[in-house]
C-alpha cells in the first residue's frame, strides 16, 4: 500500500494533468493564446520585421495607396503604415503587461488585506475602492492623463489606476469567503502569522478568479489606451500606437481608409485574444476554482 | 397489500442513453417496473444507479442529450415515450408529478409560494387568478401549513425547511396526479421533520388513492413506508419484491451486501462495518454480463457473460436478476 505522501504526490500529478487537459481542450482559450503569442512575437521582432523605420518620414510619398513597396500604404507624413502598425504592437503589449502586473500586485495585496483582516481596515479600503470604481474606467484614466500630461508612462499609470479597483474588489470578496474557513483557523492555531496565512493560503486560493479579472482588465486597458491616443491625450506621435494611427487616418478616411481600418483590426485582434483567454480561463478554471478553494493544505 | 389494485404506471424494458450519434453511453438498461394504485413503491440504490433518471426520462424532462432508446412507459393506455412534447407536458403534473430533493433550490426564490402554485394550476386548468389563488390556499391547508391565507404570499426564504417541502408537495398534488414520485424527499431535512413529511405523503395517498413512488437510499424509510421495493444497480433493476420478502429473503447478492453495510443494534460492540468491496461502476465502461460481478461475493465463472434479466424466484411477485438466486442466503 502506498504511503499517504506517495498518494498525495500521485494525486497532485493527476490533478495537474487534468488541469492541463482542460486548458488544451478548450478551443477558444487555445486560439486566444496563439493569437497573443503571435502578437508577442511580432512585437519582439519588430525592428527586424518592419520593412521601414516607423518614424521615417518622406515628403514625397505621402498618402500612397497599398503597393508592393508599402503593403498598407503611407500616411500623411509619408511613413509606412505597416511598419508603424508592427511597432505599435509593442506599445499595446507594454500597456497590457504593465496594467496586468500592477493591477495584480497592488489589487491582490490590498484586496487580500481588506478581505482578510476585516474591520475598519476593510471598510476604509472598501470606501476608497468604491469611489474609484464609481468613475467609468476610461474617464478616470482620462482625468489622470489630463493632469499628468500625455506620455506612455502617464498612460500606463492612469490606466493601471483606473483598472486596479476591479481586481481589488474581486480579491477582497474571495478573501472574505476564505476567511471563515476552518483551515484558516487551523493555521492560526499552529502559530502561523496573519501575513503568512495571507500569502500562503488566501492569495493562492484566490488567484484563479483574480487572474481572469486581470486578463479582462488588460483588454479594457488596451481599448482605453487606444481611445486616449486617438483623442490626442495618450501616447503622442511620432511614437506609433494603434490608437493614434487611427487618428492619423481619420482625416484621409475617404481616400485612404486602409490606415484607420487596419489599425482598428490590430486592436481588435489583441483585444479578442485577451477576451478569449479571459473567458476560456474562467470556463476552464470554474469547476477547478470551486474544488481548489475546497482543497486546503 | 391490495391484489386487485389497478396498475397505474407500467414501465417496460426501458433503456435510456446519453450522448450524440457517435458515442452513446447507456445509462438505463432494460428497466421494468410498475406501480399500482394506493401503494408505495420504493426505489432503492446508490447515487448514479439510475433511479432518478429512469423517471426523469419517462416524463420527458431528462437533461438535453439524454434520450429513451427502447421500451415503453404506459400510463392510462398511452405510451409516454411516443407522445409529442405538448402531449407529454399536458400529463406532467396532472397525471404524474414529481417532488425533488432539495426544497430550497426547488422553489423559485423571486416568486411567492402562492404565485408558483398558481402558475402550475393555470398551466393546465382554465382558472381565473382568484380561483387559482383560493385553490392554492386550500392546498397549503391540506399539507398542514399554518396560517395559509398569509403564507400564500410569502417567499421561499421565509419558510423553514420542512414547510418548504410541504409547499413543494402542495404544488405537486395541486392537479391531483395519479402517481406522485418523491425523489429523496427527506434527505435534506431533520429526522423529526422527515417523519412528518412521510406521514403527510402516506395520508395523501390514502385520501386520494394515488400511487407513491419513493426514491431513496435510506433503507429504514423503505422498511417503514414501502409496500414494494425495486433495487437499482448500474442502471438496471436487480431485485423487485414486496417489502417483507425483500427484507426477510433477499434474492440478489447486491441487496444482501446492502443490508450488511447497515450496522445493527444487536451486533456485538466493535463489530467492523462491512462495506461493499470495489468501486461503483463507471457506466461508460460496464463489463460484459452482470454489472455487479466484479464486486459480488457469490460470483461464478459464467457471470461475466450471462445475460442480465429479471427472473421469477420463489413467487411471481419476487424477481431477481441473479441466476444463482437460490444460493443467496441472508445473514442470520
Amino acid at each position, binding site marked *: 500500500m502506498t504511503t499517504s505522501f506517495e498518494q498525495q504526490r500521485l494525486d497532485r500529478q493527476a490533478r495537474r494533468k487534468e488541469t492541463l487537459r482542460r486548458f488544451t481542450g478548450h478551443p477558444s482559450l487555445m486560439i486566444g493564446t496563439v493569437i497573443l503569442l503571435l502578437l508577442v512575437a511580432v512585437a519582439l521582432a519588430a525592428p527586424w520585421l518592419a520593412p521601414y523605420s516607423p518614424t521615417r518620414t518622406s515628403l514625397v510619398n505621402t498618402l500612397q495607396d497599398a503597393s508592393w513597396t508599402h503593403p498598407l500604404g503611407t500616411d500623411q507624413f509619408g511613413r509606412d503604415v505597416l511598419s508603424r502598425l508592427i511597432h505599435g504592437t509593442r506599445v499595446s503589449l507594454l500597456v497590457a503587461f504593465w496594467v496586468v502586473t500592477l493591477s495584480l500586485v497592488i489589487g491582490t495585496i490590498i484586496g487580500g488585506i481588506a478581505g482578510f483582516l476585516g474591520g475598519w481596515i476593510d471598510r476604509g479600503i472598501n470606501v476608497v475602492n468604491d469611489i474609484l470604481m464609481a468613475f467609468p*474606467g476610461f474617464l478616470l484614466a482620462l482625468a489622470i492623463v489630463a*493632469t*499628468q500630461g500625455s506620455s506612455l508612462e502617464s498612460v500606463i499609470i492612469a490606466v493601471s489606476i483606473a483598472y486596479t479597483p476591479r481586481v481589488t474588489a474581486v480579491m477582497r470578496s474571495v478573501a472574505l469567503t476564505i476567511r471563515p474557513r476552518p483551515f484558516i483557523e487551523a493555521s492560526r492555531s499552529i502559530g502561523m502569522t496573519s501575513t503568512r496565512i495571507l500569502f500562503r493560503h488566501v492569495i493562492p486560493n484566490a488567484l484563479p478568479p483574480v487572474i481572469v479579472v486581470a486578463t479582462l482588465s488588460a483588454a479594457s486597458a488596451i481599448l482605453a489606451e487606444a*481611445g486616449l491616443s486617438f483623442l490626442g491625450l495618450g501616447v503622442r506621435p511620432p511614437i506609433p500606437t494603434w490608437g493614434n494611427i487611427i487618428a492619423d487616418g481619420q482625416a484621409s478616411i475617404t481616400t485612404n481608409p486602409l490606415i484607420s481600418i487596419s489599425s482598428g483590426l490590430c486592436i481588435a485582434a489583441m483585444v479578442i485574444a485577451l477576451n478569449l483567454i479571459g473567458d476560456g480561463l474562467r470556463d476552464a478554471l470554474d469547476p477547478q476554482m470551486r474544488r481548489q478553494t475546497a482543497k486546503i493544505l | 397489500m391490495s391484489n386487485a389494485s389497478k396498475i397505474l404506471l407500467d414501465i417496460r424494458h426501458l433503456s435510456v442513453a446519453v450522448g450524440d450519434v457517435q458515442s452513446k453511453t447507456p445509462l438505463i438498461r432494460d428497466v421494468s417496473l410498475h406501480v399500482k394504485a394506493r401503494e408505495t413503491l420504493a426505489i432503492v440504490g446508490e447515487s448514479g444507479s439510475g433511479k432518478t433518471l429512469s423517471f426523469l426520462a419517462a416524463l420527458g424532462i431528462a437533461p438535453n442529450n439524454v434520450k429513451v432508446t427502447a421500451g415503453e412507459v404506459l400510463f392510462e393506455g398511452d405510451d409516454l415515450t411516443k407522445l409529442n412534447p405538448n402531449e407529454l407536458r399536458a400529463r406532467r*403534473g396532472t397525471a404524474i408529478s*414529481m417532488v425533488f430533493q432539495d426544497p430550497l*433550490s426547488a422553489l423559485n426564490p423571486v416568486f411567492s409560494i402562492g404565485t408558483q402554485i398558481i*402558475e402550475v394550476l393555470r*398551466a393546465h386548468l382554465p382558472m381565473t387568478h382568484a380561483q387559482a389563488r383560493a385553490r392554492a390556499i386550500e392546498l397549503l391547508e391540506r399539507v398542514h401549513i399554518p396560517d395559509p391565507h398569509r403564507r400564500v404570499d410569502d417567499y421561499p426564504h421565509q419558510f423553514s425547511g420542512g414547510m418548504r417541502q410541504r409547499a413543494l408537495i402542495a404544488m405537486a398534488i395541486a392537479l391531483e396526479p395519479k402517481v406522485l414520485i418523491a425523489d429523496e424527499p427527506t434527505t435534506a431535512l431533520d429526522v423529526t421533520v422527515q417523519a412528518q413529511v412521510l406521514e403527510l405523503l402516506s395520508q395523501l395517498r390514502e385520501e386520494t388513492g394515488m400511487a407513491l413512488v419513493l426514491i431513496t437510499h435510506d433503507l429504514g424509510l423503505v422498511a417503514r413506508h414501502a409496500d414494494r421495493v425495486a433495487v437499482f444497480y448500474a442502471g438496471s433493476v436487480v431485485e423487485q419484491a414486496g417489502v417483507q420478502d425483500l427484507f426477510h429473503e433477499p434474492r440478489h447478492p447486491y441487496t444482501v451486501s446492502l443490508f450488511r453495510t447497515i450496522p445493527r443494534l444487536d451486533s456485538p460492540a466493535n463489530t467492523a462495518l462491512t462495506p461493499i468491496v470495489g468501486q461503483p461502476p463507471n457506466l461508460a465502461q460496464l463489463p460484459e454480463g452482470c454489472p455487479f460481478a466484479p464486486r459480488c461475493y457469490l460470483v461464478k465463472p459464467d457471470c461475466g457473460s450471462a445475460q442480465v434479466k429479471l427472473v421469477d424466484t420463489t413467487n411471481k411477485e419476487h424477481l431477481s436478476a441473479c441466476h444463482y438466486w437460490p444460493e443467496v442466503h441472508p445473514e442470520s
Partner: protein
Amino acid sequence: MFVHVGRTLLRLIVTGVGIVSVAFFLMRAIPGDPAAYMLGDYATKESISALRAKLGLDQPVWRQYTLFLGNAVTGNLGTSVVTGQPALQEVMASIPSSAILAISGLLIAILIGLPLGIVCAVRQGTWIDVGVMLGALAGISFPVFWMGLAAILIFSYWIPIFPALGSSNAKDILTQIHHLILPALVLGISIAAYIARLTRSAMLEVLSQDYIRVARAMGVSERRIIFKLALRNAMVPILAVIGVTFAWSFGNAILIEAVFSRPGLGSMLLKAILARDYQLVQAGVLILAFMVVLINASLDLTYTLIDPRLKAS
C-alpha cells in the same frame, strides 16, 4: 425597506464626498504649478501669481479643501478660463445632448442585446448561439471610435444615407433624429454586445437551476418558464450589467462625440482638457461621476423590487 433606502442614501453621500475629493486632488496633483499649467508656456509671472491668488492656490491645502467642498456644495465649481462663464453652467448646458445620445444608445442596446441573449441561452450550442456570440465578441473588442469611423465610411460615403455629422442645428425633430441615428447606433451596438453576452450567461445559469426543472416537471409551458420564471431571476445580474454599461458608455460618449463632431459633455470635456481649462475639466469630471453614482444608486433600489430576498436584508 426604509433601512435599505436610508443606507443607500448614506452611501451616496459618502461616495459623493469622495468623488469631490478625488476631483480636488486631481487638480492638486498636476506636477508643478497648476496656474502656470493653465496659462500655458507664455504666461507672465504676474498673470500666474494673479491666477494663483484668484484660485486660492496660495492658501494651505486643507484650507483649499474645505473651501472647495463648501463651494461644491453650493454649486460653485469655478469659472471657465476660456469662456468666463461659471463652470457648472457650462457643464449643465452640455448635458442634454449627451443624455439624448446615451439614452438612445442604451435603448437600442437593450432592444437588440436582451432578446439576442435570451435566444442564445435557449438555443445554446446551435449556430445562432455561436454566430451571435462571435458577433458580440467582435462588438466588445473593436474600439467604439473605430466602429464610428467605419460607420461613417460605409453609411455616409459609400452608401450615403446618414450624415457624418452627429448633430444639427435644424429646428425640426426629424433632421435631428437623422443626425442622431448613426452615433446612437454605433453606441447601441457596442453596448448591445455586452448585454447580449451577459444576458446569455445569466439565463443559462438560471435555466440550469432546480426550480426550473420543477416547473418543467409540473408541466408549465416552456414559454412561460423562459419569459416569466427564468427571466425574473436573471434580471438582477442583467440590470447590474445595464447599469455598468450605462456608466461605461458615458466614458465612451467622449469618443463618439469626437468622431461624429457632436456637441455634448464629452466634447466639452475634451476641448477643456486641450485648452487647459482646468476648472471646467474638474467640474465636468465631477458632474459625470455624480451622474454615474446616481444611476447606480437608483439601480440598487430597483433590485429590491425584483429580488424579494434583498428586501429582508
